[in-house]
């Protein structure tokens, strides 16, 4: 059972980065972005191009790919969401749905439907405290933790991070203080892009690269963000871990093919009992 818990921990860790991206985007842009799954997919494929087709080592490929993807998201936002900024979250949601289809199928168009893998060596596991762990899981845990720490520093210590939080909490007041919304929005998308790209690479390492890979995580990612409280980075982290572990542990008592029901039930339960999640603030519209 300890093994299952550990597996769940790893699954949860993978979800933390996209959950964080969603929560940041929601905080600043005020709508849930349904394209994040497809964004992770496309970013992972971009890194794949650098890694497998051009032969770069995975770390370099991820670093460059993530930055490029962050830039790409700024452009995507400019074309897609900026014109719709004043229209309300529902329109933005539908647009994000359409965007998700477009991005996923661009990946499909460019790379085909077959499953691919990054050019890294798979390794056999080692045992630690009677739990099987392997090198890739260590990498995943390490990278995610680093990313979380970086985000923490960013949001609490650095001016841009504080500005993001200000805009997230109260855009009008932030404007009065001279914090320029469009600049913050661009930075938010860039950082979200970094997170999603790294998240996509981790998924690709964990599983395989194929067009539906990101979308299959969509529900779990949303559940994690909602559980933690949309808008709270710490919540995203905690929420993701909880969702991951509960999902894996559930396989001990129920058939594994309904695993996806766990995040869904989580969403339903949270919405009924505590809509702001664990760490979020009750969101008051208008």
């Amino acid at each position, binding site marked *: 059972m300890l*093994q*299952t818990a550990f*597996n769940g921990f*790893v*699954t949860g860790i993978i979800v933390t980065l996209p959950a964080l991206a969603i929560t940041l985007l929601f905080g600043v842009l005020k709508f849930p972005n349904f394209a994040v799954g497809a964004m992770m997919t496309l970013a992972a494929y971009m890194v794949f191009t650098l890694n497998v087709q051009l032969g770069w080592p995975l770390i370099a490929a991820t670093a460059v790919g993530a930055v490029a993807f962050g830039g790409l998201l700024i452009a995507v936002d400019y074309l897609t969401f900026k014109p719709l900024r004043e229209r309300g979250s529902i329109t933005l949601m539908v647009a994000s749905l359409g965007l998700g289809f477009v991005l996923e199928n661009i990946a499909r168009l460019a790379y085909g*439907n*077959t*499953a*691919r*893998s990054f050019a890294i*060596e*798979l*390794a*056999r*596991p080692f045992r630690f405290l009677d739990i*099987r762990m*392997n090198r*890739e*899981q260590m990498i995943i845990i390490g990278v995610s933790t680093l990313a979380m720490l970086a985000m923490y520093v960013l949001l609490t210590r650095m001016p841009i991070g504080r500005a993001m939080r200000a805009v997230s909490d109260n855009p009008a007041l932030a404007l009065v203080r001279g914090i320029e919304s469009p600049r913050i929005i661009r930075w938010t998308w860039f950082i979200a892009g970094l997170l999603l790209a790294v998240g996509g690479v981790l*998924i690709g390492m*964990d*599983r*395989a690269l*194929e067009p*539906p890979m990101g979308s*299959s*995580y969509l529900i*779990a990612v949303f559940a994690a963000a909602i559980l933690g409280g949309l808008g709270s980075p710490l919540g995203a982290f905690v929420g993701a871990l909880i969702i991951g572990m509960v999902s*894996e542990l559930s*396989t001990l008592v129920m*058939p*594994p*093919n309904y*695993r*996806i029901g766990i995040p869904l039930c989580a969403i339903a339960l949270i919405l009924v009992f505590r809509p702001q999640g664990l760490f979020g603030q009750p969101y008051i519209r208008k």
Partner: protein
Amino acid sequence: MKKFTRRKVLKTLGAAAVTPLAAPFLNLAHAQGATIPIGVALPMTGNAGAYGPDMAEAAKRTVAKINGGGGILGGRKLELFIEDSESSASVAANLSQKFINVHKCQSLVGYWGTPEGMSSRPIAIQNKAVLMVSSAANAITEGDTQGYVWRFQMKATDWGIVIGRAVQGLGYKTIGVMGLQNAFVLPIMKNVEESVKKAGRTVTDSLIYNPEQPSYRAEVERIFGKKPDAVCCFGLLPDFVSIMKEVYRGGFDSKVVALSIMADAEGKFVEAVGAQVAEGIRHFQPMPDTSAAAYKKFTRLMGAPEDKLFLFPPNTHDQIAVTAMAMEKARSPIAADWSKQIIPVCNGPGENIDDVVDALKLIRAGKAINFSGAGSTCDFTPNGDQLGRGMGQWIIKGGKSVFVEYAKP
């Protein structure tokens, strides 16, 4: 004013959408009495997209050969309409309708996947056209097909029997089974489990998983965690790639038995996971009898070396050949007539013949024949299943699939 402009735009869009539909009207090639149309639905995209192109090529070359040898029914040529079924049931159903209603086909061939076959079956029967599939699921030929549905493939239950027997032959005592939630996997799984149990071995655990799951860690943990001697895994390429990576990273030692569409897929599996992960995996696939003369003729037709293994294209060749021969024998292109001639032409009794052009000559001369095709001896049961098909077994060593043996149920 604005309203008027918007209406105009919508009308233009609508006209643009409708224009492609004019295409068939431009295609006047088959004026009555000229060519005989055959509809070919093959997966060029989707799950089974890897297999379509070769099957299409086989169809084209077979038709070229028949037309070059004088065609049928007094010199009429066969004409193919090849379309992508996208490995989808509803697409295939629409295609079948299109073949029958627009192109006036009386023979629908190809149909690699079970969903395509299942959805097109009622259409074919209702419209009295012959449907020839290359899929395994039992349900396709169940019930009353009125002689319009013919399977050019080994039935799913037979797959299970052969694999089960092989697994016992390899001496595995404890076996885990996992399968994809998919129409043709389930009968295979059931039969493998049954035959294993009958031989006194133990099935340690068995489960079903969904396609496109974020991770298969839990499934692998459950089945492989019990440390059976071997695990039979039946599914498709994408999930198998994830599963085998998990197996390797989890350090599990059970031997893995799978199907060639997952573990080989024209080399894509080894490409995706690397030689080390793939080492020792055995995979099975129904295959033609490569030692038969008919098969060797087929490889020559395809312009390939004699030892090249074609799993499915020989079936497409046979489907077209049988269509042509049955039509010739019935002296009619109407399916209601020639569907009754499929068994006489394929099962005999008559002269054994494996070349379609020669067979047509014999039929025209009024002789009885027993056709043997590239994919199999083409002997059918009354409800449309093929007899005498066998299965190949391979094992992956050093990143390459090495042939082990050919066995029949």
